């Protein structure tokens, strides 16, 4: 079933009786060529591109709960490719290009809205750093614009420009950045994968890996053993727990909790995504009108999917300092998600020491924007056993070799990335 304006009109006139489930609910088969563990954004995208780009017909996605119930439904929906380092920027730009064609590609309305991502700077040094980053982006063919105070004022006149402590000196704008309806990304990929023959198996928790002579033969699940030629694990947030079942007990990853917030619905006011350069606060406005905002991770290891009040206070203080107008808006909801915080703040898409077992994780708190490229690159690795050209740097051994991709220059302290 293809979705179209005509289909919506037809269904509206015939009592909406012709809609069908967007994907099947198959029982697991005894064997697949490729199993993807984790039915989040990255896992579903991986399955989608395996089927579509790499023509794999025997693929399953195993999800312990329901698809899209984890971080793909918990993030703040921002897409951007404003990275500095060579290991990252081509990958995230690849992702951005995939976002730009995604809705037509999988025939699903993901409400992709390229309204711009604006990073504010408050000191001369910060502006210099942004100029450098903007130039690095442009060298990679990415759009970047350095705005002065007046340029920012034109876009967002409501900001607190005259703050004595943190005056707004300008900002780095990526006009092609923006937001996407995150649930629709999971559903679109699921529907696209399912229609190409991928089995999406929900409520099927992986409880172990069957590994013989150093080769992964399949996974034990709550719905029985499922054999596989190759297994790809895409469970960021729970990477440590899942990989431990395969005997890989120690990863260059800590799990941390990141909180996000949404206010009551307000009239349109925030033009795109705005990030505060002097505190932990970034904000966009959803199509329903709610201000969607967040800050930094809580900063201690956690698997709890909920954070603590000090960070709530810190984020709200940042918001009040940047745009005092939001002081009267009421907070509607807040929630937490578990992040794979890696040792250099960059992800890992790589094979493992176990033959036939592949890993995708360590997305820190930037996994959502990477969803399409992560899926494509992981599918590339699973299908061809070679890393995709934009993901060659995302290897496990980069720590041993001193090839870290440390965007923030924080070193091996995950809670600072």
């Amino acid at each position, binding site marked *: 079933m293809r979705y179209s304006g005509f289909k919506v009109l037809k269904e509206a006139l015939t009592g909406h009786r012709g809609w069908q489930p967007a994907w099947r609910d198959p029982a697991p088969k005894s064997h697949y060529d490729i199993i993807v563990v984790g039915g989040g954004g990255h896992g579903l995208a991986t399955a989608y591109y395996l089927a579509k780009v790499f023509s794999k017909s025997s693929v399953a996605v195993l999800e312990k709960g329901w698809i899209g119930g984890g971080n793909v439904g918990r993030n703040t929906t921002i897409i951007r490719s404003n990275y500095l380092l060579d290991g990252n920027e081509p990958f995230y730009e690849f992702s951005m290009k995939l976002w730009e064609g995604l809705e037509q590609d999988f025939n699903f309305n993901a409400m992709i809205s390229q309204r711009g991502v604006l990073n504010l700077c408050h000191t001369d040094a910060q502006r210099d750093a942004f100029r450098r980053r903007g130039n690095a982006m442009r060298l990679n063919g990415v759009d970047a614009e350095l705005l002065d105070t007046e340029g920012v004022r034109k876009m967002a006149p409501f900001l607190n420009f005259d703050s004595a402590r943190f005056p707004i000196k300008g900002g780095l704008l990526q006009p092609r950045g923006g937001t996407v309806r995150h649930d629709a990304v999971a559903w679109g990929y699921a529907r696209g994968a399912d229609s190409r023959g991928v089995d999406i198996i929900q409520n099927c928790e992986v409880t172990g890996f069957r590994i013989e002579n150093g080769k992964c033969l399949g996974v034990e699940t709550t719905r029985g053993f499922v054999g596989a030629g190759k297994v790809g694990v895409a469970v960021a947030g729970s990477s*440590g*727990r899942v990989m431990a079942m395969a005997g890989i*007990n*120690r*990863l*260059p*990853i*800590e*799990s941390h909790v990141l909180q996000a917030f949404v206010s009551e619905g307000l009239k349109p006011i925030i033009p795109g995504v705005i990030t505060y350069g002097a505190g932990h606060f970034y904000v966009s406005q959803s199509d329903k009108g709610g201000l969607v905002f967040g800050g930094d991770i809580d*900063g*201690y*290891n*956690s*698997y*709890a999917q909920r954070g*603590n009040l*000090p960070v709530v206070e810190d984020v709200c203080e940042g918001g009040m300092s940047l745009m005092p107008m939001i002081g009267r808006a009421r907070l509607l909801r807040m929630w937490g998600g578990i992040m794979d915080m890696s*040792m250099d703040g960059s992800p890992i898409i790589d094979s493992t020491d176990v033959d036939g077992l592949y890993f995708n994780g360590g997305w820190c708190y930037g996994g959502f924007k990477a969803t399409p490229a992560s899926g494509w690159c992981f599918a590339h690795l699973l299908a061809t056993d070679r890393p995709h050209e934009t993901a060659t740097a995302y290897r496990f051994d980069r*720590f*041993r070799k001193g090839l870290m991709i440390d965007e923030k220059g924080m070193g*091996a*302290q*995950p*809670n600072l990335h």
Partner: protein
Amino acid sequence: MIIPHPLLGPRDSQEFTYLGDANLIDRPDWQAEDAVDRFHDYLYLRDNPAGEHKELWFHEQGDRSWLVVTRNTLTHEIISAELARDVARTRGRSK
């Protein structure tokens, strides 16, 4: 989270900064044959358990002591706190 400081009693976790896994106390011997491997593991690999976790907290806004806090990463419940100095000494450090 309230951290039961062994010297100062219950203190708000906001007064502390967090470093990470308490195994960071066990710095490898730089003269060992396999020092490169051991330092790689020490610096970059973590147990990252879901459940009880021993970790280093620094009482930056307080008496500036390092604590080893045992905390449950699934519930955020803090089970105990001891001075990192004492922990290091019982492991044979700084004798």
